């Protein structure tokens, strides 16, 4: 097979689209004015930010004044959860979230715990969904904040956010969702969802890295977490990432325009990929429900082999993917998401995440399947475990 470069890690990040980059470039060199400055080029920058704010707001059905630009989705999550909880400390110190959140959320929750908060992390079922009933049962009279991610970064499952937000509202509890993965993949309408706060990021929708945003519904109290100038309606100080914001705006405009076509095309490629893998390779399992899932996501365990080894062999063939294996993580711990799903640990080690995007071609999928067939077979021929022998080389547990 002729070598290709195939990028299948769109959930990690996306390339910046040409139209986005073209729109950004002048804001580094000519239109570089500080948006806080009163002279013309400053005011032009201010105007560019206002336009981008409208574009991002439109993508999620918000009003522009409800959008606050941040440095990242992570910053938006930290801000929402930490300040959201801290500013309601008089009413209570209990926060509810789930076990499959992004580390931006999980580590913010740990931070709150160190400061004396109590945190409930809800289980998910074997398909990767939070139960709204279990969530409602976890509410106490001390609960002030609920945060459940919209779509999961590893398995792509989409949570029943409108239902969960409704529960939070009935109990008068602040509700936040991390929609970083959902953005551009689902038609998001913050009004219909009924969420109070929602985090997004540009680099998952073909925009630049280093720029995110937090939606804060008007009327919701959220104190500033960055102190300084009067930027972002005095809510988030710091000279704006002008080119980044402009790029985010353009990416949002394109995502809004192309959403249906994107979902249909990427979803069809994903289904084709999963079908071909199942057909061509024995002993594979799909992790997480294939219903209510992001269109481009496939998370697959290849039994009897380890994921980092497979990732490296795919890399040698020019294919970029990620794995839930402990061996690939700095902490040497297996994916917390697959663990929460109840996937056996040995099968987490053999899991790969493939995320398909706008620049993926059918030929890329065919090439990837071909490479997978070859490399899975190779690693299985080296492996000390197999279908015949089971998961223990001698049939005995060490």
């Amino acid at each position, binding site marked *: 097979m002729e070598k290709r470069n195939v990028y299948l890690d769109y959930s990690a990040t996306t390339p910046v689209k040409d139209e986005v980059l073209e729109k950004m470039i002048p804001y580094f060199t000519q239109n570089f004015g500080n948006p806080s400055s009163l002279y013309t080029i400053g005011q032009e920058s201010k105007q560019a930010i206002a336009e981008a704010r409208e574009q991002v707001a439109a993508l999620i059905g918000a009003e522009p004044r409800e959008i606050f630009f941040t440095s990242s989705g992570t910053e938006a999550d930290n801000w929402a959860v930490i300040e959201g909880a801290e500013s309601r400390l008089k009413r209570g110190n209990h926060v509810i979230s789930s076990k499959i959140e992004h580390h931006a959320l999980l580590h913010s929750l740990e931070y709150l715990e160190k400061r004396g908060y109590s945190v409930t992390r809800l289980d998910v079922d074997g398909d990767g969904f939070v139960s709204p009933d279990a969530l409602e049962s976890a509410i106490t009279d001390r609960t002030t904040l609920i945060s459940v991610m919209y779509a999961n970064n590893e398995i792509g499952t989409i949570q029943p956010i409108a239902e969960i937000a409704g529960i939070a509202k009935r109990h008068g509890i602040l509700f936040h969702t991390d929609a970083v993965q959902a953005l551009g993949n689902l038609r998001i309408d913050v009004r219909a969802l009924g969420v109070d706060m929602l985090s997004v990021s540009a680099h998952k929708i073909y925009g630049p890295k280093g720029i995110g945003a937090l939606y804060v519904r008007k009327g919701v109290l959220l104190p500033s977490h960055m102190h300084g100038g009067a930027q972002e309606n005095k809510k988030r100080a710091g000279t704006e990432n002008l080119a980044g914001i402009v790029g985010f705006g353009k990416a949002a405009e394109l995502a809004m325009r192309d959403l249906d076509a994107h979902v249909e095309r990427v979803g069809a490629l994903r289904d084709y990929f999963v079908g071909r893998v199942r057909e061509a390779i024995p002993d594979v399992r799909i992790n997480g429900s294939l219903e209510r899932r992001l269109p481009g996501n496939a998370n697959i365990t290849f039994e*009897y*082999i*380890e994921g*980092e*080894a497979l990732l*490296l*062999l795919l*890399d*040698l063939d020019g294919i970029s993917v990620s794995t839930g*294996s*402990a*061996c*690939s*993580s*700095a*902490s*040497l*711990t*297996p994916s917390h998401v697959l*663990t929460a799903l109840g996937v056996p*640990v*040995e099968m987490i*080690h053999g899991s790969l995440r493939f995320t398909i995007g706008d620049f993926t071609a059918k030929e890329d999928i065919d090439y990837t399947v071909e490479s997978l067939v070859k490399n899975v077979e190779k690693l299985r*021929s*080296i*492996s*000390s*475990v197999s279908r015949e022998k089971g*998961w*223990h*080389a*001698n049939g005995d*547990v*060490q």
Partner: protein
Amino acid sequence: MQMAMYNDKVIAHFTNPHNVGELLDPDGEGTYGSPVCGDMMKISIRVENEVIVDAKFKTFGCGSAIASSSVATDMIIGKSIDEALEITNQDVLDELGGLPPIKTHCSVLADHAIRSAIYDYAKRSGRYYAGLEGFDPNADEDDQDHGCDMEEK
């Protein structure tokens, strides 16, 4: 540049490992690690006149675990049992030209699996080796640097 975290020798042994397989009627065999921990190596040896004349391995594990297994089996073939027992994790690491720090636990696997196979050989043949003194093939000294604390055994 690809697989930048590994040197060329590691990549060569990972992509074309030596001595893969299982010996028929081996004189000794040993297994170390577990799939739950992310890697498990099985090794079988043939011994003639106290010299390891052949060795084969099968490994479930990451790239560096497979490369360590390949290099370790290369290292013991042609060595006497006593010489093979002197091989340390550091020797395997040095032979590989080093691994990223987070991956060094993978070479521990090979060292322990070799000892387990020799232990099995000693048991079968009724021989005694000073180098096996205090060795317990079932000990899991590997746990602490393995990210395996959540393991259910």
